């Protein structure tokens, strides 16, 4: 039994290789893109809505509401990044009930990649909203001596993001695998159902945490701006 899907190599040509993590990621990307294209090529702005359009609108409205509540800012600039994090992780996790499918999120490489994306996105959004100097000043808050701790905090929370998602997903897969050997009937089904719930919760947690980090990086500027207005 293979714990790490990275090690399942499907195709190899010199240094170029396609492992199952990448392959299933592509599958998820394809499903999302193709599904979106199918629904959004025939959007109506009035009258009857198609079910799929309704679903997508509910989803996006929900994400926007969450972003607005967490960041207390307009969700516009953050929606593509945070929304994609949620949708990608959620679909990757939900597909885990399909036999033969290995969720890419159960690979530490994938979760690390996503965490690195967040790690990069935080300063990008921070600098975009309040400038380089103001953003860098945050690391000196409340005093100069806090700089190392701020930096460690930055790194550790990224690591925590990656490991939390990986641990949850990997454990889910492994628990089902182990249970199958012990009690092959019924019990794994319950665990898989639980796995669906865990997967959605993890997707939600990951996206919300990412949003919190980004918001905290760009909120200082908002507060300064508010003070200036007052």
């Amino acid at each position, binding site marked *: 039994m293979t714990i790490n899907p990275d090690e399942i190599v499907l195709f190899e040509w010199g240094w170029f290789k396609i492992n199952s993590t*990448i392959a299933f990621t592509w599958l998820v*990307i394809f499903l999302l893109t193709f599904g979106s294209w199918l629904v*959004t090529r025939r959007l*109506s*702005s009035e009258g009857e809505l198609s079910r799929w359009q309704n679903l997508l*609108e509910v989803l*996006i409205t929900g994400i926007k509401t969450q972003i607005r509540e967490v960041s207390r800012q307009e969700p516009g600039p953050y929606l593509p990044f945070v929304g994609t994090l949620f949708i990608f992780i959620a679909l990757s996790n939900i597909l885990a009930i399909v036999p033969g499918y290995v969720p890419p999120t159960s690979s530490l490489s994938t979760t690390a990649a996503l965490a690195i994306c967040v790690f990069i996105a935080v300063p990008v959004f921070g600098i975009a909203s309040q400038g380089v100097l103001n953003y860098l000043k945050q690391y000196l808050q409340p005093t100069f001596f806090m700089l190392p701790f701020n930096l460690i905090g930055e790194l550790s929370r990224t690591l925590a993001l990656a490991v939390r998602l990986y641990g949850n997903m990997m454990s889910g897969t492994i628990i089902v695998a182990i249970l199958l050997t012990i009690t092959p009937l019924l019990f794994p089904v319950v665990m898989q159902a639980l796995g669906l719930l865990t997967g959605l919760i993890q997707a939600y947690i990951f996206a919300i945490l990412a949003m919190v980090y980004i918001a905290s990086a760009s909120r200082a500027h908002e507060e300064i701006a508010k003070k200036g207005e007052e």
Partner: protein
Amino acid sequence: MIIDWYTIIFQIINFMILVFLLRRFLYGPVIRAMDEREQKIVQREEVAQDKKEEAEQEQQHYRLKTEELEEKEEEIIENARAEAVKEKRGLLDQARQEVDETRRRWQESFEREKETFTAELRRRIGHQACTVARRCLQDLADARLEELIWAMFLKKLNRLPDQDRSELKKALEAGEDEITLHSAFETGPGRVEEFKEILRDLVPAAGDNLNLDAVTDPGLICGLELDAGGYRVAWNIDSYLQDLEEQVLKEVEQNFPAVSGEAGGKEVPGDDQAGS
């Protein structure tokens, strides 16, 4: 090794591509559609609001118009009523005037009828009285009524007072040719001679050439009249008729006392009797 850097980089790129793709195929179109719908709803609401305001204005307008019409209607009715009252009053006045006029005319005609009736009555009574008297006299004696009247007239002439006699004399002397004897009945030649004799006795100066003209005049009722140059001696039933007439007129007044007070209430009573 759990962490495969090759896969990590690959996944980062994959995630970037997914962000781009979803942005292109999911968020963009859906948000655009939602915004468009929202805008359309807002527009529709604005249009609805405009229409509502318009309708309210229209309603207000019509309400004012209705009130105006009601006021006008009341005014018209009021005017009509006033006019009707005026017209009624006018008509009543006119009717009253007409009634008064009719009454006045009726009264006048009644008066006329009464007078006519009275005159007619007087005339008839006279005639009747004469006829009755004549018949009575005829029945009582052989002599005709004329004889009696004649005798009465001659007697009156003989018994003339002295003053009258001298006046008659004077008159006869002055105008011999103009002595006229009016009588209600035919006087025979004997009577004329007899009369001449009497005149000769009265006025001897007249002599034989006394010119007496006998004229029959039915207007004199049962009487005789001597007309001699302005002097006149007469006897007839006129005085008796005068008394009778007074009596009859009194009777008429008593029989129709309230006629002038009751307009149109009765037929004019003289109509039938006047002609009978």
